[in-house]
């Protein structure tokens, strides 16, 4: 919530399609979506660097798969 700074972001066509699709689907502006992706990335990296593992579990909790974050 501190003062904002501006930067130019260069994206490929495919990346821009994904950004526009996700932003439209989730009701976020493209800026809000990129900022949220950055928060998510920091959140994940912080846990991985602590030695934690990141898993996805399917809805009925029968399968659990580790998400590799390199």
């Amino acid at each position: 919530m501190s003062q904002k700074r501006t930067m130019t972001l260069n994206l490929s066509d495919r990346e821009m399609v994904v950004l526009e699709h996700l932003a439209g689907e989730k009701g976020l502006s493209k800026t809000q979506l990129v900022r949220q992706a950055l928060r998510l990335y920091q959140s994940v990296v912080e846990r991985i660097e602590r030695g934690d593992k990141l898993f996805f579990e399917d809805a009925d909790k029968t399968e659990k798969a580790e998400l590799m974050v390199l």
Partner: protein
Amino acid sequence: MRRSLGDWPLKNRHTDGEEWATLYDAIAQNNVDDFETRWKPAMEAKLATLKTQEEVRKANIQDVRWKWGDKYRDRSNRIDFESFAVECGGETQGLMFVKTVAFSKIQLGYSIAYIDLVSTAPWNRWGFTDNPLYKGVGPLLLSAAVELSISHGFDGRLGLHALPQSEGWYQSQGLTEIGPDTNYQNLVYFEFTANDAKAYVTSN
């Protein structure tokens, strides 16, 4: 550098008057100091007088071991957490951490703001005392979390796990009760949908 998000009236139950509280967009060292030197000793002194688990439960001090200072230090460079503090009468009256990387259990795939830790000063709580001081700290912090959710593009969507003594309060604020979360100490999980949140900020 933290900013004031404005001044809001709290009811002083002792004088039956209103006092202006300042809501800040981050916890600062003075708030952590207030927790360590004012809140915690008051809760520990109360705890020392209690004999049974039932008395402890009723005393409304389940957060006595929360480590606000550690969280304040560990999260100072994190962008996936925001924090808030309420000050009134020269002291910290409320503290809150909100995680901004979380997903709704109602609207799958939609982001929410998740209230990770929230407390009002012990002297404002029923149970801790028969004569609590300020009324309105909880709604002020809940409104701040909704506004944060709106500013992030989450339409006010919000989630939290409630401590047992707080479940009734969250129900009274209009949050949707999802139920006990087996992945989180069986604490009851609540959410504000976008519509719930809109109604809440309008009525507060």
